């Protein structure tokens, strides 16, 4: 499919729209995605669009142009090295959220609702505004993998620290470091009750999920006895509640001093080092590599594809050969899996991807506040509030029944009905030089779906919406596109 020069120019205009807002525009919106040549993606490379759509929270025109200029492979390489990518918009968007930089003791003095609200807003804003899209995607992946709900005990303020020191710090680093940090994270110890794990009658909760969810997987070769012995190793791993409140503590008085046996290996009494030695083994265990490869591959690829099992094995092998580098696993999945696919099969968007893609692709100004978060709650994916340690599911069947909640968001966003979120539809359409309703519909189709809606649906939708008063037409068409089946996939 080739695009005519007229459309080409309209789309180029859309890029500029982001930089033309009025004086009340927040600072971070003025830092434009300035890229010189909007040229090549306009040739209608829907394959590149589909790949970027999968790897971002909704590709912006700037990202589409960049990938068109340097190629999708090179775009992925850049994303794999987030430190090399300047990210002023991402950084500026969360700068007002001061709680995100505080330590546990300071956070504990805040109002609970404020801490939780800033944590949620921070995650959403970074996903919408950061250039480091792959990093944010991995942050989300590990947030789910090491799920912690802020509803549990002191997690309402401990999770902010965990988010910064555990998840964000190690999201693209070495898995051993990530696992180590998570195991010593007060938020995790509280969430899975290990702070109450006492030698007199161990609490198995964290020990089990460490083996089942965080490392080996439910079929990873451990037994109930291993869970019980690991729980003994972890007795005394707890959290300070007075001085140095919210810091990790090993309480030797709670620790079971006897010898243990986990996964066939005898563990001599060594206090805190007992569980740490098992954690080191778990991090490099072949079952862990397979379990992680299985999950991470499914995050990026439709699991029904024939080549997924083979890709998983290779991703696991690369991970092991690298000594547990997350990037090594990602390279196989993204470069050999996603980017090498001649005809990428889409994945169903989870609610968070649906919401961020609407906000992002339409160049919306949002503070990520309550109205947007409420929509996510209605869709069943409240941020940082998933109650169970498995994290929100990553399969279509879990989410497709909640279509109505997505339609509500689509309608609210298109009509600018969310406080704290501003969609400048007129500016967008002006930049696209859309003069007629048809022009507007096609420009929005290009923006959201990579191409105008195909016929006969295009004409039929225009006909059904067309008779409304002029000024409502584009908003209704936009609502239709956001609510359409095609926009639910990426």
């Amino acid at each position, binding site marked *: 499919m080739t695009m005519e020069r007229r459309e080409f120019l309209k789309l180029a205009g859309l890029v500029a729209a982001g930089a033309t807002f009025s004086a009340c525009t927040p600072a971070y919106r003025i830092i434009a995605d300035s890229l010189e040549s909007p040229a090549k993606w306009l040739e209608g490379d829907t394959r590149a669009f589909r790949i970027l759509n999968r790897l971002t929270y909704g590709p912006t025109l700037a990202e589409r142009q960049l990938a068109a200029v340097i190629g999708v492979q090179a775009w992925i390489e850049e994303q794999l090295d987030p430190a090399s990518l300047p990210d002023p918009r991402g950084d500026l968007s969360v700068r007002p959220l001061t709680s995100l930089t505080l330590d546990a003791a300071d956070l504990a003095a805040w109002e609970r609702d404020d801490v939780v609200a800033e944590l949620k807003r921070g995650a959403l804003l970074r996903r919408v505004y950061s250039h480091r899209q792959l990093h944010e995607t991995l942050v989300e992946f590990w947030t789910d993998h090491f799920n912690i709900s802020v509803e549990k005990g002191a997690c309402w303020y401990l999770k902010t620290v965990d988010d910064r020191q555990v998840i964000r710090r190690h999201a693209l680093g070495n898995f051993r470091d990530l696992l180590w940090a998570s195991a010593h994270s007060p938020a995790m110890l509280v969430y899975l009750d290990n702070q109450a794990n006492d030698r007199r009658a161990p*609490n*198995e909760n964290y020990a089990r999920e460490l083996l089942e*969810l965080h490392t080996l997987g439910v079929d990873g070769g451990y037994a109930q006895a291993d869970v019980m012995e690991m729980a003994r190793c972890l007795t005394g791993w707890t959290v300070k509640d007075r001085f140095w409140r919210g810091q990790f503590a090993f309480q030797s008085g709670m620790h079971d001093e006897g010898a243990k046996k986990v996964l066939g290996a005898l563990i001599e009494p060594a206090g805190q080092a007992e569980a740490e030695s098992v954690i080191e083994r778990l991090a490099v265990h072949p079952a862990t590599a397979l379990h992680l490869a299985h999950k991470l591959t499914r995050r990026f690829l439709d699991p029904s594809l024939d080549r997924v099992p083979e890709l998983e094995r290779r991703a696991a092998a690369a991970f092991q050969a690298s000594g547990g580098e997350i990037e090594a696993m990602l390279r196989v999945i993204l470069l050999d899996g996603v980017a090498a696919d001649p005809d990428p099969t889409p994945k169903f968007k989870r609610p968070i991807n649906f919401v961020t893609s609407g906000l992002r692709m339409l160049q919306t100004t949002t503070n990520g506040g309550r109205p947007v978060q409420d929509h996510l709650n209605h869709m069943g994916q409240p941020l940082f509030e998933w109650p169970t340690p498995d994290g929100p599911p990553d399969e279509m*069947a*879990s989410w497709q029944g909640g279509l109505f909640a997505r339609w509500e968001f689509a309608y609210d966003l298109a009509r600018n009905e969310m406080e704290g979120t501003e969609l400048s539809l007129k500016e967008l359409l002006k930049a696209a030089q859309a003069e007629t309703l048809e022009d507007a519909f096609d420009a929005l189709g290009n923006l959201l779906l990579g191409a105008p809606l195909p016929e006969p649906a295009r004409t*039929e939708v225009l006909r059904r919406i067309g008779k409304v008063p002029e000024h409502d037409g584009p908003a209704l068409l936009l609502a239709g596109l956001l609510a359409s*089946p095609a926009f639910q996939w990426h």
Partner: protein
Amino acid sequence: MNSAADCEACRWVVPAATAGGPAWMPRLAFHPANRGPRGDVLLVVFLRGAADSLNMVVPHGEDAYYRIRPSLAIPRPNDRRAGAALRSLDLDGFFGLHPALAPLLPAYHAGHLAVVHACGAPDESRSHFQAMELMERGLTNLHGPASGWISRHLASLDTGNYSPLRAVALGERVQRSLRGVVPASALQSITDYHLGGDPQATARLQAALATLYAGNDPLSEVGRETLAVLETLAGLGADRYDSLLEAHYPDSDFGMGLRQVAALVQAEVGLEAAAIDLGGWDTHFGQGSSEGLMAGLLADLAQGLAALHADLINRIDDLTVVVMSEFGRRAAENASLGTDHGHGGSLFVLGGGTEGGKVHAQWPGMEPGQLFGPGDLAVTIDYRDVLAEICLRRLNNEALGAIFPDYSPVLRGIVRPRA
């Protein structure tokens, strides 16, 4: 056997012409079903997190229970050292209800409520997620069909009822038990289930959505379903369900969900199966005893079910409610005044066709030699024995092989055939 109702077994197919979206969207093929009259409305309540059935339905005749739960045990019905409000409520001289379940006593004594104890699944993973997945799919091992057991029941019985509200999931997401080829809608509130804004504009948007969701892809079917639900609920009229929602449901998400179920039943909009979750049962820490954390959950459960029972008493012979959980908890308490993952649990059946007013159990005992694995209640009745009997006798579905493909159920006499 499994393909007829197994969504994930259907391969995506890409047709030449696309209706409502780009060519790269997945397409789905569909399957036929068998015919029969419809039976009861089925409501499945899932207690997420492994509810401690030993404190829900207390084996107060069991000395070991009091020995290994020194802090958590619910006092015997005649234990004068405990306040009357803290004692278990005797059912049959051996079992008693947790005092917070007192609202269920009228249904129990009316013969509408049965307890099945030492009941559960063969899975020994003690993993919430594996256990729930297997149980909601009705399977012994994960290699069976990906669809849920309720979905396979619906898919294997064409009752001539094509209502978009035939299967409803209460809450934000569709439970695994309801997933499959028969689309189920997630419903949070009947009264909020409409798009706001100018009615004319909204009507145009919905007309456009009907076009966009006209395709032969998995999502389009859900979209058409959603539009049909919107239309059906709009046709109910808001004033009408206000009057239907007067029973005394607890002011909780669970109570709210049960109210929606009752309203849909009363409104006769074709509801055949509904699923609702109640979470928070993973009580490793600070579980409480007659009072406390778990008692609060039990109160919500019991008040909700009692309100539903009262609200639908005129239709009680056409209703079967099942309350289940993925497994029970460790027989002995842990040092954090909680309980760890166990094995055998219990299951409640509520409805006019229930052999109620009794506890159905082959009690395995709780002495050291009688406990299972690391110290858990053994399973002597498979949960599928109960569900299969409900499918057969209450839902008019004989296709048990399609619903529970890797298990041969044993009928236990827990429900009666429909009159």
